[in-house]
């Protein structure tokens, strides 16, 4: 990272190759099924942009995922703005046309669907711990919250997942 901070593009490419797979999975698990690759690229562009703010005392992975979270939050904000605009312009007919797409068949209700139904805060800690293999302390550093908060959020998230997966008849929900 020191070489990246001094502007080395080779070092930057090596860093990117080392982390691109994990980062792509982070975004996909967070729900960016189509834009995951764009978000990976966006995160690395931000990494280069903020390279001089990185302090060697902090773990690099923490720094990277802080930027990834910002990229994700910005994407969601943009999406919300676009959806507000779209919904204000959308006609009733258009909504009727889209509705069948949202009705999933019963067997499509799976782990991914359950994960998507968690609140963003719960989903985030679950993705970071279960899929990214991060320790609670790392997650706490990334989110900027106390360790105990991470612990309770993971516990709540796992409990919510269990309920969603056990829930009978929930599989027709969008």
């Amino acid at each position, binding site marked *: 990272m020191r070489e990246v901070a001094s502007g080395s593009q080779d070092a930057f490419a090596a860093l990117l190759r080392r982390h691109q797979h994990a980062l792509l999975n982070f975004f996909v698990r967070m729900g960016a099924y189509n834009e995951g690759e764009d978000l990976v690229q966006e995160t*690395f*562009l931000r990494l280069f942009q903020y390279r001089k703010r990185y302090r060697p005392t902090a773990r690099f992975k923490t720094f990277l995922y802080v930027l990834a979270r910002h990229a994700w939050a910005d994407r969601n904000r943009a999406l919300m703005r676009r959806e507000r605009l779209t919904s204000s312009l959308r006609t009733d007919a258009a909504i009727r046309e889209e509705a069948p797409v949202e009705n999933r068949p019963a067997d499509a209700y799976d782990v991914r669907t359950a994960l998507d139904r968690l609140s963003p805060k719960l989903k985030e800690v679950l993705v970071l711990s*279960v899929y990214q293999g991060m320790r609670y302390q790392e997650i706490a550093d990334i989110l900027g919250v106390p360790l105990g908060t991470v612990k309770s959020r993971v516990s709540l*998230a*796992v409990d919510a*997942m269990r309920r969603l997966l*056990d829930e009978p008849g929930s599989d027709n929900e969008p």
Partner: protein
Amino acid sequence: MSLEATTNRSDDEARLCRQAGDAAAYLLGELSDAERQGFEAHVAVCAGCAGELEGARRAIGALKTLAPVAVTRDFAPEVLARLESTLSWERRALAVRRVLAAAALFLLLLGGALCFRAFFRQGPGGGAVAGAMAADSPMSAANSEALAWLGRTQEPDGSWTAAQWGGDPQFDVALTSLAVLALLGPEPVSPDRAAAVRKAVGYLVRQQDAKGAFGPSFSNGPYNQGLASLALLRAFQALHDESLRPPIERAVAVLCARQTPEGGWGYWGGAAQEPNLSVTLWQTEALKLAVKLGWNEARPNVRRAVRWVASVADDRGSFGYRRANDFPAGSQTLAAMGAVAVLNDHDKSVPPDRRELIRAKVLESAVSSLGAPDYYRVYFLTAAMKALPDGAGASQLALVRGHLVGGQIALGAQRGSWPPTDRWGTVGGRVYATAMASLSLQ
């Protein structure tokens, strides 16, 4: 204790136990050795927590059934390409600051010179010249680098190709023409640049058919036609090469023949033949130069062209693309294009009050043109500013150019070029970006 027994206990009962919340942490390896042993001992005697643990184990197990997503390609090349553009913008900001600093220094010097002159009642000061030189020098250095890049990247047959530098191969004639125009810019033309231009002109002439048309026959052909005609005319003007007369005559004949009854030019073929401002501009600029160099038969065509351009302007000095007000929100590129045609018209076929509005619009566009790169817009904007009378807009011109210089690649193999990151980058590639930027600095 059986699993059945534990799962029959209610969740509420389990949650009354303080340690129920440790189940996930236990499974994820987040408990210390002591905590883990304590939790295991507790679960052995607490049916509620044993149920919680089993539920958590199933949930986490289910989560882990999702297979990781594979990375299908290496992102590094794409990110590095985007990075190049980002770095260019960082340099651009630096260049703008430098230009502003130079402008401030110039004003300071000018102020000092005026005070000095007022005090001692001496003759006219040379501050303006010194200031102009100070502001211009980074521009000319940047332009020299751009021309050096073009010199390095010319193909053995004299062309610049889209295949090599990005863009659409159907526009190789237009790209080569843009490079010629850039290389002929600064006077006097050095022997190296003259040699490169001769080779390029040879390539262009070889792309002309017997009737005078350049390049492949397709709807966007007018860009090849207008730019190649302009490039040959500029080469004829700068190098006094009489052998270019016959191809120029054929090229001018095609331009005149393709002019629509309305006076403009459109794409070749289909409904798109209706004239538009972008296509019309290049054909008009070529014919204007032809008239200047003695092809007087094209003079009526130029008059009709300028009248058509003026016809798509509205009462506020904004230009439309095919007709007035067809871009209701306005377009800076169209404003600059229209201004180039109208303000450079020596016959002054547009009334003075309308010209004044158009001038004002150009200056207004300059202020808001410092955002994302758009080499096409900046080219026409700087061309329009140069057409303003009495040096009006000189500070805006310096600012726009300074912004442009900041985007130039400063290091590596592509040093001197501009990244093709604007909206036409996929059509014109790096040759287009660099030639247009170079022309904007001249």
